[in-house]
């Protein structure tokens, strides 16, 4: 699995975890709120209950009070059966809650009225009407409201009973025993109360739409309940069932029950039923709403994390890319620095200070065959493209100058190579110089580069032709020039980064300031290469202080200090007999240098073979010519230069013979060149001014 997928899973996991946490908090809060609400509901229903209990109490009390207050009238007309109606009317008229009043005489109290006599006054359609209820079809002596007070001789409340075939047993009776003068029971006076209104009262102020109140007898008989319009009868039945088994909740826990008992007779039970769901439905709704909000918030959170991580990823990718590029630039820079000379002799010093990480400037120098080859160049543009071309040119210079002595030819070859593949249209200003350390001759050719200074008493510009830069036209001709140097003179080469360094006013450092600076150094006897470069560098830095370096800054100083030189020459004719004279000359020259015999023999042989080659191959039969051999040495190295005027013949281009062949297979010729190559350190040929010029160099010591 790749890391981005893993990261994504981690982010999703984070959001899911957040969701789980939020839900856990929500559940905990919900539970807490729920229990608080449950407590509140219980308290509230208790309040409702106690209100209901006191309502019922009050109703019973007023009925009892009506009985007690008005019973004297009944007693007064007890023995007058016809007056009983009026007394009862009086009695019920006092209390609107009383539906009917009756006086049930003991059997046979009034013989004239039959065995059972029960005068009754009852409300009907707003008026009080009279009726005698006793008779065979209504034997009140069997009724609870008669028997209980008759037997106990004290007032009592009957259980509810239906006085008509209705659903609820909605009638109760308060019965009071009336005794005669002898203390015997004469009649039972009763007040009927219709309780159908009680159910309405109990349920008129319910706190929740589905809650309801009920009134039950001690035996669990329903006295008053919610109207059918409020609660379905089967729901009431179900609650009665639950109450009978003593539970406080339905099985599904949706309905809860609170009960309270009257503290007085008839000790009925008031029941409040409420739906917990209903109470919690609002919190549930709230919870659902909050969940929606949480989901939206989590969605936004996830979106933000995604965006952020994507941004982070882009940023880290960008910075990784940047690090990679700067790492590569670092490598490129190292490669470039590797190519620049790092070890300097006392008389040469050079520096490159690139404006960007990699630069387009270069310089180089090296010594070959008693000659110092050097160059300085500036590729147009900066940065990687310029640096790449610079590296190419640097390598080309090294390769070309290895076998080519003439600066103009070196430039020509470089130019052809660059023009051939210069799609970027970069061009290069380039200066190539070659100082013959034995002859003090300084050959040079320019390709559009800034003129170097020649330093003696003061700094003067080298009178060099500008020519076109490299890379412009493939057929540009680079004119070669030369001057003679005097020992002690120096050359100061630089790139335009130096003269075009700007100060804050955007004015160039310029050639005049540069010349002044160098002249000052000469006057101070500080024109030693390294000192001179650090002085000029410091001057330019001070001049352009606070301004970003905009171009590469390169300097190369060469002090011409050839030291002690031994030079000689001999001219011979193209005749093999002349070789002996040559040998004597060489022997004598090498003796002056104290070269050991064996090495001297080697050198002699190398030179002899070269001259014999010239005699044999450069001059067609019969053609007379001269061969001059120059011998030069600085006591560290010896150089022989063979110059003949014969036809062009490059012995270095001749293949060496195979030295591993058997005697019979060995060719007779070709050994001379082989020996020459093997006996000296360097052999180089060039055709110069119609002459063959062959240099043999051997390092002494």
């Amino acid at each position, binding site marked *: 699995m790749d890391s981005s997928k893993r990261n994504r899973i981690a982010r999703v996991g984070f959001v899911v975890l957040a969701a789980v946490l939020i839900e856990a908090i929500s559940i905990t809060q919900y539970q807490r709120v729920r229990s608080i609400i449950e407590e509140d509901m219980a308290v509230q229903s208790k309040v409702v209950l106690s209100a209901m209990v006191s309502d019922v109490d009050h109703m019973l009390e007023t009925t009892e009070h009506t009985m007690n207050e008005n019973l004297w009238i009944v007693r007064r007309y007890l023995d007058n059966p016809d007056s009983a109606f009026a007394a009862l009317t009086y009695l019920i008229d006092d209390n609107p809650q009383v539906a009917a009043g009756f006086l049930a005489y003991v059997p046979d109290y009034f013989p004239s009225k039959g065995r059972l006599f029960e005068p009754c006054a009852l409300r009907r359609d707003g008026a009080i009407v009279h009726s005698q209820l006793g008779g065979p079809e209504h034997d009140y002596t069997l009724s609870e409201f008669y028997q209980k007070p008759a037997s106990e001789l004290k007032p009592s409340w009957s259980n509810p009973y239906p006085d008509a075939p209705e659903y609820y047993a909605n009638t109760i009776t308060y019965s009071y025993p009336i005794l005669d003068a002898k203390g015997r029971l004469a009649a039972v006076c009763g007040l009927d109360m219709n309780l159908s209104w009680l159910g309405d009262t109990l349920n008129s102020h319910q706190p929740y739409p589905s809650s309801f109140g009920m009134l039950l007898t001690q035996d669990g008989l329903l006295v008053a309940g919610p109207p059918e319009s409020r609660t379905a009868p089967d729901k009431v039945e179900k609650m009665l069932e639950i109450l009978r088994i003593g539970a406080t909740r339905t099985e599904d826990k949706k309905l809860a029950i609170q009960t309270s008992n009257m503290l007085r007779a008839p000790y009925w039970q008031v029941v409040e039923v409420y739906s917990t769901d209903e109470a919690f439905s609002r919190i549930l709704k709230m919870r659902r709403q909050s969940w929606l909000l949480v989901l939206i918030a989590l969605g936004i959170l996830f979106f933000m994390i995604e965006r952020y991580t994507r941004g982070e990823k882009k940023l880290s990718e960008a910075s990784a890319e940047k690090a990679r590029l700067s790492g590569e630039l670092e490598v490129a820079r190292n490669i470039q620095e590797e190519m620049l000379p790092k070890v300097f002799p006392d008389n040469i010093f050079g520096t490159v200070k690139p404006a960007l990480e990699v630069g387009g400037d270069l310089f180089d120098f090296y010594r070959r065959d008693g000659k110092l080859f050097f160059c300085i160049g500036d590729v147009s543009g900066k940065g990687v493209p310029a640096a790449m071309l610079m590296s190419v040119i640097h390598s080309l210079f090294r390769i070309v100058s290895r076998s080519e002595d003439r600066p103009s030819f070196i430039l020509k070859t470089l130019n052809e190579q660059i023009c051939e593949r210069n799609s970027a249209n970069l061009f290069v200003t380039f200066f190539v110089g070659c100082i013959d350390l034995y002859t003090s001759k300084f050959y040079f050719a320019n390709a559009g580069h800034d003129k170097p200074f020649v330093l003696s008493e003061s700094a003067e510009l080298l009178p060099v032709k500008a020519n076109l830069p490299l890379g412009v036209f493939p057929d540009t001709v680079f004119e070669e020039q030369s001057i003679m140097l005097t020992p002690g003179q120096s050359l100061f080469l630089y790139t335009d980064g130096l003269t075009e360094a700007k100060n804050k006013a955007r004015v160039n450092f310029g050639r005049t300031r540069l010349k002044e600076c160098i002249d000052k150094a000469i006057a101070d006897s500080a024109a030693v290469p390294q000192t001179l470069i650090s002085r000029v560098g410091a001057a330019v830095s001070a001049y352009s202080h606070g301004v970003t370096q905009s171009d590469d800054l390169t300097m190369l100083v060469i002090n011409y200090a050839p030291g002690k030189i031994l030079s000689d020459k001999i001219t011979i004719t193209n005749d093999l007999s002349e*070789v002996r004279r040559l040998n004597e000359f060489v022997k004598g020259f090498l003796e002056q240098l104290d070269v050991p015999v064996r090495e001297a*023999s080697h050198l002699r042989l190398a030179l002899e073979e070269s001259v014999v080659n010239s005699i044999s191959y450069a001059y067609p039969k019969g053609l007379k010519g001269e061969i001059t051999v120059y011998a030069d040495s600085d006591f560290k190295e010896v150089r022989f230069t063979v110059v003949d005027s014969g036809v062009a013949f490059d012995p270095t281009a001749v293949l060496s013979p195979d*030295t591993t062949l058997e005697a019979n297979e060995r060719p007779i010729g070709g050994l001379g060149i082989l*020996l020459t190559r093997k006996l000296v350190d360097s052999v180089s040929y060039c055709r110069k001014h119609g002459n063959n010029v062959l240099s043999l160099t051997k390092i002494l010591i």
Partner: protein
Amino acid sequence: MNTKVQVLDDKILVSLSGEFDTAAAEEMEKSLQPLLDCGAKDIFIDCTELDYISSRGLRILLVFLKNAKANGSRLVLQNVNDVVRDVLELTGFVTIFEIE
């Protein structure tokens, strides 16, 4: 350059002294002619006093060697000094000449 040639019954003794350079080689070709007419005789060349040899000298020796081999005889170089040995080594001639 001096050469001494002694033709014996069974061999030819040669001694070379001085410098066998290009100019000497020009002259040598005549004085060493007996070596080409050696028949089946072995040739021993004493190089004790030979100070120097050029490629021309080597070529002359090579001609003698090829001739001797064609006749089924030997050509032996004796007492070769450092300078001459260097040249023989550089040219690979040490492998084709018999050197004592």
